[in-house]
């Protein structure tokens, strides 16, 4: 078998196997010198990105992909002697999974390149990069897996690696405090998910998402399902940072080193993916989707408003951006929540699907521009040495490129045309107002407040007299920022590239749980 076929056939497994191997080898390669280690890490991340692109291509060309670990052949989901239950670990890749995997891999690569420059003077860099790779493994695994217990395992990998990364710069104990809070909250959440998994396993005798969804559909929605569903959905809402369970977000993002906050954003978005996957695919067929949709809408509204108003109060640049991350998560919950609330009715094709596309498009846009903003914040802290906005000023005199990148990110997050934030926000506004005009009004007001608070940051950090005599940041950091800025402008001017290849397949995949089940269980079963 030639290498190309090997990669094509095993792409879903390689998506987690390659970064996992990379993470384990990184400390060993570090013995050969820092340069070799950096080259290795970037190569692994680039290969992961390639695999993620390959997955998107495969899903768009051949439909839903199924990969069974250890099976012969690798598409044998239900072995003949298993009694009709998919017993093995299964990766199921549909449009939404491939979409999330692509975002994770992209931001992983960008943050890897950025950290080459920004962590240059830290000790134990091999551990930093190993954790970064492990975080990518966690996100990819959450996105690709088709088995709820595996989902829990990858969620824990994700949380532990993220918490360890947050504590990487001790910062006189403050970063460790943030990491402690983050780890406690994510662990209790993950335990609740495990409890729910145990309930589902006890009831349906299966761990496969498709199998559970099918058996739940056949036997009807019971009280136990209700408890399990509540545990899973509330926990995942907490993990993606929805108000009023968002307290760990500003701590974690605010204290993470350099550009690592950018990848933590994507780590929360993997939980957001989990929320959508569970509510559409696993529970969507049996549960009352309207009340689930309103649950998401209300969380989204709260997150949007409280996030942005709290951001206005902050004077720490990363903490301010972290509150904006909470606020932007609200848009995604709102968009997809409207889709879920109208699922199965005539209104879904009228505007629900557009709202979902808007919400999902906002996920990738948010990853790009919030990633860029966190990278610029990391650049400022790298040069100035403080994250306090009250002590900053006049940085545009010396850090011209950083200022331009910051401006691009700020305009994109505030929804100024023609950047990408506007495209997705427009899709959300113009579809959710048909469900209830109040939703669109809140979304628009929040967008204005976002612009106001980023003007505050831009004024206090970049404008004014020259206070700090600093140089521009190293080239690797600028390169990482320019990648994200390029995609922001590209998706702003040609939004249909993203919508056509990434967003629409993801929205249609979520809206069609029966196709998912049929693909995994092979028709009858």
């Amino acid at each position, binding site marked *: 078998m030639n290498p190309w076929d*090997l990669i094509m056939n*095993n792409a879903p*497994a390689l998506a987690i*196997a390659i970064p996992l*191997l990379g993470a*384990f080898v990184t*400390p060993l390669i570090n013995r050969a010198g820092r340069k070799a280690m950096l080259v290795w890490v970037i190569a692994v991340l680039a290969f992961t990105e390639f695999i993620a692109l390959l997955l998107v291509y495969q899903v768009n060309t051949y439909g839903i992909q199924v990969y069974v670990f*250890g099976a*012969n052949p*690798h598409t044998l989901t239900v072995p003949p002697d298993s009694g009709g239950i998919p017993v093995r670990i299964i990766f199921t890749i549909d449009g939404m999974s491939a979409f999330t995997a692509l975002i994770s891999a992209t931001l992983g690569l960008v943050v890897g390149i950025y950290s080459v420059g920004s962590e240059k003077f830290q000790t134990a860099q091999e551990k930093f990069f190993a954790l970064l790779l492990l975080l990518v493994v966690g996100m990819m695994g959450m996105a690709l897996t088709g088995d709820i217990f595996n989902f829990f395992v990858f969620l824990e990998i994700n949380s532990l690696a993220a918490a360890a990364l947050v504590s990487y710069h001790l910062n006189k104990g403050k970063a460790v405090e943030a990491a402690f809070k983050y780890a406690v909250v994510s662990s209790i959440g993950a335990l609740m998910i495990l409890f729910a998994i145990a309930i589902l396993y006890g009831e349906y005798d299966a761990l496969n998402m498709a199998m559970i969804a099918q058996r739940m559909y056949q036997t009807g929605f019971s009280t136990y399902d209700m408890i399990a569903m509540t545990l899973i959905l509330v926990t995942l809402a907490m993990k993606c940072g929805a108000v009023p369970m968002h307290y760990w977000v500003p701590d974690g993002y605010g204290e993470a080193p350099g550009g690592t906050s950018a990848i933590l954003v994507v780590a929360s978005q993997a939980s957001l993916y989990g929320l959508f996957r569970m509510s559409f695919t696993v529970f969507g067929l049996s549960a009352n989707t309207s009340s689930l949709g309103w649950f998401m809408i209300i969380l989204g509204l709260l997150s949007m408003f409280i996030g942005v108003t709290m951001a206005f109060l902050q004077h720490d640049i990363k903490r301010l951006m972290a509150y904006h991350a909470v606020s932007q998560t609200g848009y995604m919950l709102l968009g997809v929540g409207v889709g879920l609330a109208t699922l199965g009715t005539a209104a879904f094709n009228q505007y629900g699907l557009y709202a979902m596309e808007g919400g999902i498009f906002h996920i990738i846009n948010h990853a790009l521009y919030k990633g860029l903003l966190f990278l610029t914040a990391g650049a400022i802290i790298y040069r100035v040495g403080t994250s306090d906005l009250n002590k900053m000023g006049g940085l545009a005199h010396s850090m011209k490129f950083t200022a331009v990148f910051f401006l691009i990110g700020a305009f994109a997050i505030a929804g100024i045309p023609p950047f990408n934030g506007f495209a997705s926000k427009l899709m959300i506004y113009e579809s959710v107002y048909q469900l209830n005009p109040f939703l669109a009004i809140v979304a628009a007001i929040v967008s204005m407040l976002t612009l106001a608070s980023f003007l505050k940051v831009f004024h206090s950090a970049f404008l004014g007299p020259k206070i700090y005599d600093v140089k521009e940041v190293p080239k690797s950091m600028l390169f990482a920022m320019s990648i994200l800025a390029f995609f922001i402008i590209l998706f702003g001017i040609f939004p249909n590239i993203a919508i056509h290849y990434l967003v629409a397949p993801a929205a249609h995949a979520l809206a069609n749980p029966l196709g998912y089940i049929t693909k995994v269980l092979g028709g009858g079963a």
Partner: protein
Amino acid sequence: MMSKIVRTQANFLYPFILIFGFYVVAHGHITPGGGFQGGAVIATGVALVAVAYGYDTIKKWIKKTHLTAAEGIGLLCFIITAFIGLSTSFFYNFLANSGLIFGNRVPYGINPGYLNTAGTLPIMNLAVGIEVLGGLSVIIMYMMAYGREVKQ
């Protein structure tokens, strides 16, 4: 360093704990237990000696770099075993029923427990055992070292 009685007890128990740990690792595929449990048992042996003799003495006997290396090697063995089966699928049990070193069939019914069965599972158990013994011991060592630093 603790009293003479504790140290003597530790001396006496240490080899037995190690042997029991390796027994659990080696029989992972036919009895309850496996790599993690066995590795954890071995690490408790390390913890026992570390508590009995104190960090200053033990750091001359057990090097942290060796433990870290054990961790890395265990993880590498595990993932490479998974990669070898890639031509069929990731984690494919290419040794099962092949009659080679671990390739015998598992017989049904009551039997003494043949070690050379189950294909790649014993290899993975060994790898996990090495990894966990390294990982948990290194956690203990680092925590003891850091605890002294905090106290001062």
